[in-house]
């Protein structure tokens, strides 16, 4: 099956350093893909290359199976089928309404037709009342909503979102994540979201691409990748705790380690108890892996150096199977 957008034999070299090497990657139509990776893993570069904003050093970008032209009218026409929201998207020095109207204006869409679409998306992102406010007077969350509405209003074939929640405080992030999740659920648009955050990836995407040091370490449907992380790097990035069992590594899903019963037991050496105020957690080591487990309120805290037994409620082998 040919993807809507994809890359073949892609490399990107920046200042003599290879930042991206992807032999093959396809984003399928109507898929919601999250590209997950740590900072500096090349995920923003991948997004820019896919969105035709940056030319790769070698390789091709495919759009519906055909090599994308790199310059000229055809390249612009193709670029206009996409929309991109950069991290901390820079807004223009004008009102919220005019910011959202920008991309339509670039395409020659103005007047009542444009107005109707703009109002719809301002309302969907809950910023209809801010239409006449100047972009400079917005809070971080409002600015990010403006940036997203500005891209969604274009009804693009593919929408590229680069860290849509970076630099937002926790309440703004939570409320926008929830709104965006609902909007994406209705949207039939193909969406590529770049994020370093496993929770954002899990909530916004149905397929994951895990990128580490410029290379794809896992790719596939979300459930599959979460149930069978193919390697240690991908597992750790997705929040799994990777622990050794009889010389093999198993991945314990986020939140599955505890003091109670489980499918697997591990001996943990206590280092200290971390006080959060609302809960206490025991921090220690299993082999040379640092782990944390919750300490129930009625349990006395263990002393440093003590060896206790912890259990994993669930665990999956690494490398499939």
């Amino acid at each position, binding site marked *: 099956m040919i993807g809507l957008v994809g890359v073949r034999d892609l490399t990107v070299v920046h200042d003599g350093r290879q930042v991206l090497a992807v032999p093959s990657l396809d984003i399928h139509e109507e898929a919601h893909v999250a590209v997950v990776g740590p900072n500096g893993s090349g995920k923003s570069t991948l997004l820019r290359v896919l969105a035709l904003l940056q030319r790769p050093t070698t390789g091709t970008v495919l759009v519906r199976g055909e090599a994308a032209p790199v310059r000229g009218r055809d390249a*612009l026409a193709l*670029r206009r089928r996409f929309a991109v*929201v950069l991290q901390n998207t*820079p807004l223009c*020095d004008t009102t919220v309404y005019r910011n959202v109207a920008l*991309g339509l204006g*670039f*395409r020659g869409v103005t007047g009542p037709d444009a107005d109707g679409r703009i109002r719809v998306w301002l309302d969907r992102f809950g910023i209809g009342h801010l239409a006449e406010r*100047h972009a400079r007077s917005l809070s971080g969350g409002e600015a990010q909503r403006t940036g997203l509405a500005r891209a969604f209003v274009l009804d693009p074939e593919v929408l*590229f979102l680069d860290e849509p929640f970076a630099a937002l405080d926790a309440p703004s992030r939570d409320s926008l994540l929830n709104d965006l999740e609902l909007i994406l659920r209705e949207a039939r648009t193909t969406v590529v979201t770049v994020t370093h955050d496993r929770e954002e990836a899990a909530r916004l995407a149905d397929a994951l691409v895990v990128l580490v040091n410029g290379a794809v370490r896992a790719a596939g449907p979300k459930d599959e990748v979460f149930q069978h992380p193919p390697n240690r790097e991908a597992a750790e990035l997705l929040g799994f705790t990777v622990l050794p069992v009889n010389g093999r590594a198993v991945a314990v899903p986020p939140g599955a380690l505890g003091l109670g019963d489980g499918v697997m037991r591990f001996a943990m050496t206590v280092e200290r108890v971390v006080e959060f105020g609302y809960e206490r957690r025991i921090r220690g080591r299993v082999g040379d892996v640092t782990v944390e487990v919750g300490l129930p309120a009625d349990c006395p805290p263990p002393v440093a150096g003590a060896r206790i037994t912890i259990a994993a409620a669930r665990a999956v082998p690494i490398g499939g199977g």
Partner: protein
Amino acid sequence: MDLILQGARHAFELLLRGDPQVMEIMWLSLRVSGIATLLSLVTGVPLGMLLALRRFPGRTLLLGVINTGMGLPPVVVGLIASIFLWRTGPLGFLDLLYTPSAIVIAQFALAAPIVAGLTAAAIQQLDPRLQVQLAGLGASRLQILRRLLHEARLPLLAAVIAGFGSVISEVGASMMVGGNVLHYTRVLTTATVLETEKGNFDIAIALSVVLLTLTFCVTMVVTTVQQRGALRR
């Protein structure tokens, strides 16, 4: 002090009366410096944008030359322009020396680096990611450039004010390439020098007041446009 008051009074008389000679000199100053400023915008803005947005060999050197040009002594520009326009000079065949066009050329050489340098600075202070974001919303190359100019409109209008201010007020270049010919190339600054040399301080002061008023009016128009843009936020 009396002299200044007397000069100011005389200036207002000349202005109110619409003294034909003052009007002629004022109009020529405005026309010559206005055209020179316009030409410097037409070339300086694109050059400034190129310097701000592109990386090419010799860019820093060119920017350094332009920044030096922002403080060019008008007399030096006048001298170089004279040499070029001299009957036996490389551009002598144009027969432009001691014409208003010669003053326009010299003033253009003074204003263009100011406009180019300030444009480059204005565009460079914008968020560099804005270009990428605009492209990501489907802007063509030209649409991106237009939007960047719009984003930098306040400092760009400051560049217009600085460019016009530098040429309307210079005397050295106008004197050297224009020659201060009555009814032909006599502008406010050269006329002021002449009247001072002749000892007609009242007329010299009157001309200075006219020059200041003219500069103030033009600058005020541009400032009003600029601030209307600034407040519409």
